[in-house]
């Protein structure tokens, strides 16, 4: 849900979030989650018209600004138990992926 708000170029109403989620989440569930996210400070809301519209507090500009943390500085073996977006790769696999990537690029 944060991803949806983050991608949106403007604040979204709960109805719009529900629509973009495209899942079977009910409108009330979405508003509940948005309320919780707001309590955690991850989203803010503005009143636009009659409804509250939500947006992610961390914008892309914030993302470009880096923060120093030591957690990940150690070797790549670090946090190997967690789900990483991409795991270990062999050189052969990298070549194959590069080829696929070239084929996909518009």
């Amino acid at each position, binding site marked *: 849900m944060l991803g949806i708000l983050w991608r949106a170029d403007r604040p979204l109403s709960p109805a719009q979030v529900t629509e973009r989620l495209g899942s079977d989440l009910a409108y009330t569930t979405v508003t509940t989650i948005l309320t919780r996210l707001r309590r955690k400070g991850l989203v803010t809301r503005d009143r636009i018209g009659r409804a509250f519209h939500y947006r992610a507090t961390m914008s892309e500009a914030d993302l470009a600004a880096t923060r120093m943390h030591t957690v990940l500085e150690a070797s790549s073996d670090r946090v190997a138990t967690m789900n990483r977006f991409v795991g270990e790769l062999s050189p052969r696999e990298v070549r194959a992926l590069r080829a696929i*990537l070239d084929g996909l690029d518009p």
Partner: protein
Amino acid sequence: MNTTLVTPLAATVIAAVGGLVVHRVVPPRHATRVLAGITVLAGTAVLAALVLVTLAGASQVAVVADLLPWCPSFAGGGHGSSAMAGVAAALVLVLAVARAVVYGARVYRDRRALRHVTGLRVEATSEAVALAVPGRPGGIVLGSALVAALRPGERAVVIAHEQAHLVHRHHRYVYAAELLAASIPALRPLARRVRLCTERWADELAAHQVGSRRLVARTIAKVAVIGAERRVTAAALAASGGETITRVEALLRPHRSRAGATGSGLVALTGTAAICGAVAQAHHLAVFLRHACHL
């Protein structure tokens, strides 16, 4: 070797071998659960068998039998295992527990190191890091260089993927399978597939959310290539079962519903075998203890 020990182990082996192909015929969200279940059941069965052989072997040794006065039928052996087999099983068992403890410590260390991560967090690092930190509410860590290298749509893919891990609590399946695989190395191929299935599951949900399988496939390939370029040491590019290629190709294949009957049949077969193997083995252990120790 006696049949009461070998027959359930055979069922366990059938389950494990069947489990190796489950992810090919069952959607990832089901395959993850089935595979994690098989791994845990198979691990339990093997550990129970090891305990049984250890005890049966130990019963031949007078010193051990003397230590267990509440087990009158225990002494004198005759429980189907030689003392040597008992010693061997005991060694394997000790090693298994030690490796499980090491794995548990690694999980604890990793989670402790990242326990303050909630929400989306960008870390200043040139490594192509993107990972889901389990917990309540959990969080996502992205490397700053990776964020900078990705287009907004691709970032959305990475975030949707990691969010899927958190929402569906994928770490529980991975931890359970890897803990058993750490203690019994023969289960490692199964545990690797559990991890692969959680990745595929998250890929599918990300594709659903961004509305493009192609975009997800391209993002995975791009992050992988960036990661390989940024990696400092060649040593890090070591073992890989080609999981990333599998994920990309699965996304690029036209989406089709898998062969339902084959999948259900295989799940039924491997699931039944795994349950039978584990239950039989645990049952034998219980019977042995009750018989020998009049519990």
